[in-house]
């Protein structure tokens, strides 16, 4: 029994953290907010080079041949940086789905970063749909492939997180993808999104802790007030009890446990609530300074609000867990 990451896994995480700190700061993100794309191609190509995009693809398909346990920490870093782009959809969902479906040609292209693949479940609104080369969509228990040409043109839906552009799908031309397990597809996505949410929460807690140490009112740092301490302590307690659920879900998927759907639902429900609390606490502790568009805080808040709903909101996953526990 060992529930911890290896030195290699931690080193890979650190490398991604460094890359994102250098390449994917708030300015890059704000540029996407002001445009209509959800992905910075330069950052994306660096991720491809590092092997992140094809991490789950077998080496024979040009991937790293690693597993979800290796990926989960990297997804957390993507959350910490509020990285824009379909990393969850492409690297955590589409690549292993294409591998399972033995769709070799798109798998190779996706692993290399030559094509961008996005994914969605159950809803016609697909994030990053308009800038993807291929869309994988689970609907009514079948994973289906959609070409970008089959998107509905017209007024796109605007997410509160403007770095997550959505497109609408015309289902009529979707092609079933044999060999893709829809439950696994959804579990992968939920668990990966949960990891991103943990990273978002970690950033929110850390930057808020930094802020309240500096900001002074009544002659003292506001971080010396017990109310502020307890807000942040509560957020950290929630995060540090969501992380183990997320890591366990990654292990459960990597090792093909029969409980993987339940484990992914648990991870998503807990990460949703931890990130939601961190967002509330971060805004409250920043006060009016954080309630502006100029401050970077809102970029993280709105990502949380968007991802809490992606791949199942908390009531949905709570129902899944209840069904598994009370089966």
């Amino acid at each position, binding site marked *: 029994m060992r529930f911890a990451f290896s030195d290699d896994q931690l080193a890979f995480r650190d490398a991604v953290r460094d890359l994102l700190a250098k390449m994917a700061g708030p300015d890059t993100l704000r540029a996407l907010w002001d445009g209509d794309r959800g992905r910075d191609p330069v950052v994306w190509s660096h991720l491809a080079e590092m092997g992140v995009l094809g991490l789950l693809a077998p080496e024979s398909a040009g991937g790293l041949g690693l597993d979800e346990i290796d990926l989960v920490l990297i997804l957390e870093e993507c959350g910490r940086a509020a990285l824009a782009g379909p990393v969850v959809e492409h690297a955590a969902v589409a690549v292993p789905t294409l591998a399972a479906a033995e769709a070799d040609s798109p798998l190779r292209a996706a692993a290399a970063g030559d094509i961008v693949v996005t994914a969605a479940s159950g*809803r016609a*609104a697909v994030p990053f749909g308009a800038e993807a080369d291929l869309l994988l969509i689970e609907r009514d228990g079948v994973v289906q492939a959609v070409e970008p040409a089959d998107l509905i043109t017209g007024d796109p*839906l*605007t*997410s*509160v*997180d403007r770095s997550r552009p*959505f497109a609408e799908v015309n289902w009529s031309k979707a092609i079933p993808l044999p060999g893709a397990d829809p439950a696994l597809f959804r579990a992968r996505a939920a668990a990966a999104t949960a990891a991103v949410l943990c990273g978002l929460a970690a950033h929110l807690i850390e930057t808020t802790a930094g802020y309240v140490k500096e900001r*002074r*009112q*009544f*002659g003292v740092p*506001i971080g010396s*007030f017990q*109310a*502020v301490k307890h807000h942040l302590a509560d957020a950290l307690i929630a995060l540090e009890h969501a992380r183990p659920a997320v890591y366990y879900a990654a292990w459960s998927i990597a090792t093909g446990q029969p409980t993987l759907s339940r484990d992914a639902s648990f991870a998503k429900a807990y990460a949703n609530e931890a990130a939601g609390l961190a967002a*509330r606490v971060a*805004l*409250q502790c920043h*006060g*009016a*300074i954080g*309630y*502006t*568009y*100029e401050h970077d805080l*809102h970029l993280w*808040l709105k990502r949380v*609000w*968007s991802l809490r*709903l*992606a791949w*199942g*909101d908390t*009531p949905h996953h709570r*129902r899944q867990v209840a069904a598994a526990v009370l089966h």
Partner: protein
Amino acid sequence: MDIGWSSAEEWFRGEVRDWLEANKPPLPMPSGDSAAGVGAHLEWERRLFDAGWAVVSWPRAYGGRDASLWEWLIFEEEYFRAGLPQRVAQNGLFLLAPSLFEFGTNEQQDRILPRMAAVEDLWCQGWSEPDSGSDLASLKSRAVRDDAAGGWRLTGQKTWTTRGAFCTHLFGLFRSDPTAERHRGLTYLLVDLRQPGVTVRPVRKLDGDEGFAEVFFDDAFVPDTDVLGEVHQGWSVAMATTGSERGLTLRSPGRFNAVVQNLVALYRERPDPELRGEIADAWMAARAYELSTWMTVTRLADGACPGAESSLNKVFWSEMDIRLHETGLRLLGDGAEFEGPWMKGYQFALAGPIYAGTNEIQRNIIAERLLGLPRK
């Protein structure tokens, strides 16, 4: 105890309802916090004024109807029930006007109130400064005496000034006695923003609207006729105003009843048995707020002054507002993230626990003033 509306009050309600129904602008209106949207709001609020509905509880001389607080509640109830938006003039009407009625000279009242009611002047609040948020008494913007000109010269900066970018005037506190500390030596000044010494920089709020501003003062001038109350006594004048902001007037129960009405309609469109209990919670919270307001209004009608009790209301409505919107977002399911009134309203609601004294400060006030706990 005699709960219920008199026939005169019911008649008043009918009159309000009929007029609003016949005259209300196309809804939803664009955001009144945006440069693009504010014009339509100013036009609408002038129409309200022209028909005598802008300030029902004010004297007729200033454009009001001498309405009672109960009638004001009825007006608010009908106003929000009709789906109408909060007023862009509200900070002048609800924060400055009570202070003007209490501390202003007759000349000031006669000059300022009718133009405020008619939305000819639009007032913003100048309390906060970059280093003075919760700790208002630490503010640094200075007012220096200019005897020759008969007034005060302002330097410094105000910030998070709601709708400052669209306003013509600002009411605020300035340090007039540089040797005094904290809440001593402050003066309440009424500042015309349309002068060379004032620079207003719009600041976008969380939701992207230009609803905030930074206001810079560089030798701006305020004549003595625009000092509200006594020189150096601005703190006590301002406290009367923040009492209003926290408590009754800024947030009438009608606002939340309207949100609950929208929640019930949304539930009927998208019924979800798991969320039935949240609908009950929403209704109960708004109702508790309404009933608590009725008790407060009865006390005020009996001659009591609003005190620290207003902090109880402020924490309650601000946290309720967030919960009501969270329920709306949950009913929308995974479509909640797309632009729409619930996400917009949620972002607006999130400001509630921050402005007008953070809820942390309010809880301190409740514990110290209502329960007598020691400050230190």
